[in-house]
C-alpha cells in the first residue's frame, strides 16, 4: 500500500445488514466506531513507542471488527496480518510497516466517513 494512499468510499454492506434501514442508527454507529478507532490508534502508537508487543497486539485485535463496521476492509486485513505477526514473533518490529500504513490511511478514511455521514 503506497504511503500516499487515499481511501475510496467505504464498503457499507455490513453496516446496511445490521441497520435494517435505520439511518439514525447508522450515523450513531459510525460516530461511535470512529471514536473507538481513534482511541485504539492511540494504543497502537503507544504500544509501538513503548515497544510493548502485547499492548500493540491487543490494540490491532480490537481494531479489526471496528474497521469492518466502518467499511474499510483493507485496514481490517492489515490488522489481521499485524496481529498474526505479533503472535508469531512477539516483536513489534515484525509489523511496523503495517502499523505505519494504518497511521497513514486512517485519518484519510475518517475524513471520508465524517463527510459521508455528515458528522461534525
Amino acid at each position, binding site marked *: 500500500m503506497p504511503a500516499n494512499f487515499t481511501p475510496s468510499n467505504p464498503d457499507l454492506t455490513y453496516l446496511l445488514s445490521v441497520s435494517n434501514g435505520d439511518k439514525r442508527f447508522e450515523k450513531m454507529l459510525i460516530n461511535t466506531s470512529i471514536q473507538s478507532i481513534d482511541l485504539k490508534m492511540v494504543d497502537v502508537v503507544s504500544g509501538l513507542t513503548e515497544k510493548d508487543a502485547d499492548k500493540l497486539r491487543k490494540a490491532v485485535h480490537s481494531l479489526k471488527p471496528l474497521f469492518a*463496521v466502518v467499511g474499510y476492509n483493507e485496514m481490517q486485513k492489515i490488522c489481521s496480518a499485524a496481529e498474526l505477526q505479533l503472535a508469531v514473533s512477539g516483536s513489534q518490529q515484525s509489523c511496523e510497516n503495517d502499523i505505519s500504513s494504518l497511521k497513514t490511511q486512517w485519518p484519510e478514511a475518517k475524513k471520508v466517513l465524517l463527510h459521508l455521514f455528515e458528522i461534525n
Partner: protein
Amino acid sequence: MTTHLNSNNSQSSSDNCRQILLADDDLSNAMITEHVLQMNGYSLKHVLNGKEAVAAFQQEPDAYVLILMDVQMPEMDGIEATRTIRFLNRSGAAVPILGLTASVLQEDIQLCYEAGMNAYMFKPYDPDKLMNKIRELISPKKK
C-alpha cells in the same frame, strides 16, 4: 461501570424471560448487538468487562437466557469470567455462554471451549447468524 443499552419501554415478564447479558468493552459491537436483539424481541443488559459480568450474574443468576461474552476485555477477560460463572453455577442448569472474538488463532478458540463456553462467533457478526446461534443455544429453555 454498567451501561443499560436497553431502551424498551415495555418490561413485561416475558421480556424478562428473554433477557441476554452482554459483556463487551467494544461500544460499537454493543450497539449492533442491542439493535439486532431488540428487533428480535430480546432485551439486553450490557456490562463492560468480565468482572462486571460475574457480578451481574451473581446478583441475578436466573435472569438471563444467555450470556454473550467477549473474549478480550480489560480488568477480567471473557475466559476468566466464563470459568468463574461456570464455577458459581456448577450445581444448577448451566446458562449458555456464547463467546465473541475477533481472534484468528485456533488456540484462542480452544481456550473458549475449555473455559466452558458453548460456542463462539467471530466479530463483527452477521445478524442472522447471531440470532440463529442464540436460538440454537437457548432452545431447550424456550418458552
